[in-house]
């Protein structure tokens, strides 16, 4: 029976210490997996924010941006989130429609994105451009435009992600739509024979690419920076496309019914300070949303810098997403 008392005693201590921690206000932030992982910005940001706020920062890691949105919809007004961080511009239209989010009230002039930003609810914290990453050991002359990629029947095989299950997949679908407009369906049909496979998420696609299954994979212009910074290799490069590259802008927003409004405001403001912004490049492998604070790490030198930044308005994506996914499905399953 002795162990029962031990157990009770330890639970008691654990509960007591939990309530001691609970004396400090806690801010709950829903975000995605790779943000909270040991290699992501999460651990460093938690430390830095807790040092300034006199509070406890609780990061909740969900699978990805889409999971974040569906979790918010599932919980509705019962959500324990004070802030959600990690939606991108292809999901913000639907997130805004839930009516669960409140204006951020942050001064936007400090932003330095590839485009102008005036949204009152969603506050960007980093951004990047989609790009095809290729293996320069095996591909010496990558296509120089999306048109060339689509039209060259003898071109390299590519791996993309499914727009029904992944945000980069959806990003590429929108990119195609921006460049080909009403002819997108035809373009998909032309491209189809060179799509080696369509994976559920980014990791599967990139894994297959690293195993040399295809010459190109849909990723980001910043992917080569990782290989440079960590693997010390120049082998993997991003192909610059003359039509411009579709952007992914990652944003955070405050939950309207959260009881911790002032802490949430504090966090959103903190997001644009150098402490947060400076660690984004080498942990999230994206560009910081405010570039004025510090120079980018060397690994980010001479990456592909898109001639034009392509982006649909969030409300257009919210309205057209299902129709365009349908068009994609029909074009690729003939």
């Amino acid at each position, binding site marked *: 029976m002795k162990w029962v008392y031990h157990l009770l005693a330890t639970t008691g201590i654990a509960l007591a210490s939990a309530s001691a921690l609970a004396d400090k206000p806690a801010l709950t932030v829903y975000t995605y*997996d*790779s943000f*909270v*992982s*040991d*290699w*992501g910005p*999460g651990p460093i940001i938690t430390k830095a924010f807790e040092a300034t706020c006199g509070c406890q920062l609780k*990061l*909740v*890691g*969900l*699978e990805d941006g*889409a*999971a974040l*949105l*569906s979790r918010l*919809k*599932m*919980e509705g007004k*019962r959500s*324990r989130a004070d802030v959600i961080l990690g939606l991108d511009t292809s999901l913000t239209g639907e997130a805004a429609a839930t009516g669960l989010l409140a204006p951020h009230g942050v001064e936007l002039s400090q932003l330095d994105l590839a485009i102008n930003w005036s949204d009152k609810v969603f506050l960007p914290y980093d951004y990047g451009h989609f790009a095809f990453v290729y293996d320069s050991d095996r591909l010496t002359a990558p296509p120089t435009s999306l048109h060339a990629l689509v039209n060259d029947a003898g071109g390299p095989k590519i791996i993309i992600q*499914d727009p*029904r*299950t992944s945000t980069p997949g959806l990003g590429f679908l929108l990119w195609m739509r921006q460049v080909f407009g009403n002819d997108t369906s035809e373009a998909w049909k032309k491209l*189809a024979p060179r*799509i*080696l*496979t*369509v*994976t*559920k998420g*980014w*990791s*599967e696609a*990139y*894994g*297959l690419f*690293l*195993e*040399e*299954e*295809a010459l190109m994979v849909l990723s980001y212009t910043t*992917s080569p920076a*990782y*290989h440079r910074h*960590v693997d010390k290799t120049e082998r993997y490069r991003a192909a610059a496309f003359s039509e411009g590259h579709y952007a992914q802008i990652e944003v955070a927003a405050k939950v309207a019914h959260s009881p911790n409004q002032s802490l949430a405001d504090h966090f959103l403001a903190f997001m644009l300070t150098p402490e947060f912004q400076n660690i984004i490049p080498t942990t999230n*492998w994206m560009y910081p949303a405010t570039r004025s604070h510090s120079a980018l790490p060397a690994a980010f030198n001479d990456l592909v810098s898109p001639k034009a930044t392509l982006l649909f308005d969030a409300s257009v994506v919210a309205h057209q997403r*299902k129709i365009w996914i349908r068009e*994609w*499905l*029909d074009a*690729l*399953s003939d």
Partner: protein
Amino acid sequence: MDPRVAGRALGLNPFSLLVRDAGWFGVVAFMLLIALVGGTLLVLLTASPTAVLSTQLADPYLYRVVGFTVWQASLSTLISVLLAIPTARAFARRDQFPGRGALLRLMGLPVVTPVIVAVLGIVAVYGESGLLNRYLEPIGLSWRGHFYGLTGILLAHVFFNLPLSIRMLLPAWERIPGENWRLAAQLGMTAGQRFRQVEWPALVGVLPGTVSVVFLLCFTSFSVVLILGGGPRATTIEVAIYQALRFDFEPGLAAWLALGQLGICLILVVALHRWLRAPPVSRGLKTGQPRALGFDSVSQRWFDGILLTAVCGFVALPLAAVIWLGLNGPLVRVLSNAALWSAAGRSALISTLATTLALALALGLTLSARRLSTRHRQRAAEGVLLAGSMTLAVPPMVIGSGLFLLLLPLGLTFDIATALVAIVNATLILPYLVRTIGPALMNSGARYQRLCLQLGMSGWQRFRLIDWPLLRKPLGFAVALAATLSFGDMGVAALFDTTGMLTLPVMLYHQLGAYRFNEAAVTALVLIVLCALVFIVVERLVGRWRS
């Protein structure tokens, strides 16, 4: 007298009759299962407006998806089981060669390897730029340009399910009474006749369970089909369910699709069971094929040898690729990370919880199925076993989301996330347990029911003295499989919160998501080695534990 008639004569209501015929343990297990699956589906159905449902459910694309799902699952099952029968027979006949035990354990590994790891291993060997293509291309043999599509899907499904089928079919040979072999020898039966008259009747006892588990696994396969399928031509219903729950957030649509999937699987599995009716079990004193009967011929030995080499090679190569990649990764850095070991600990906790729960449910279901069948309620018995394996047709994501919505009003979702993940995992592994324990218990029941009645043996005493000796080997395998499956399964952790739920598979996904493919390779190696260890330890502990 028919017990139902007797019951009515005594004035018992149908429920107490059910409890009497099935045992309260079984009734409770059955009710829990129905409540879990039914409850979660119901919550999802009521969670979203159904106005647009009819147009979505009438989509012709959906029917093409259903068609493809049935087609690839049937082909995968057919190939896996047809290859498994002669291979299991070869394992049964060659019961003494060195390394046999190791090879059998190897057969338990593919199904417990996390899908993405296994797929990367398969691609490294059989893919477009895989090892095999690289060596075969110079001599003019190559499938470059043909791997992604049905070929890749079938290859991966056979990789996962052939070894599983072998392990699930093998006990059939161990249950053939020695007398039958002797009789076959006296009658001078040919190899073909022996298969039909001696082996097939034993095989039919385990075949329906094995075929239905494999079929359900292939039917609901998701990531494999997406990665290797080559595009949206090759998708399964599970993808549509995922999409409905994740991107579109239409829980109602997801629940209808899940119900549709459950319905189709149920019809196909019931049809299969009707077709493969188990013949009466032959009773005998000894099991095992006596060597002295002179059945063994040189050609048979060659056939078995080649078959075992080919099958084991096919399974071992991708696993070897995974191990090789892991050994070449940053071993020290990953292994010295304390987070890795606490993640392993959390995986072990979830696996223990899930396996205990699933084992309790499985024992309840199988014991009550036996009780029903000895009371001549064969259909009810089959129904109970079927219910236990149908959880494979309900996507874990659906059960997880349903449970989440159910518990949301209570505000408990954060605090009991571990328990939730364990419950969802338990439904995932229940079918393996039911389908492995079921046939063994039925067999023991058919053989010793009368003896037990004569001796007045029942309950715990009967379980310990009569059932256990026949049960412990298959049970050892089933529990080991269930524990490792749950250990290596990504499950629905990501649905709740991966920060507080950092299991080994979650950690692996974190690494992959952060470009850390080298570290992930080491984590995968650790995961496989731990799975193998858990497998061996559990199988030994349970399988050799004499009562």
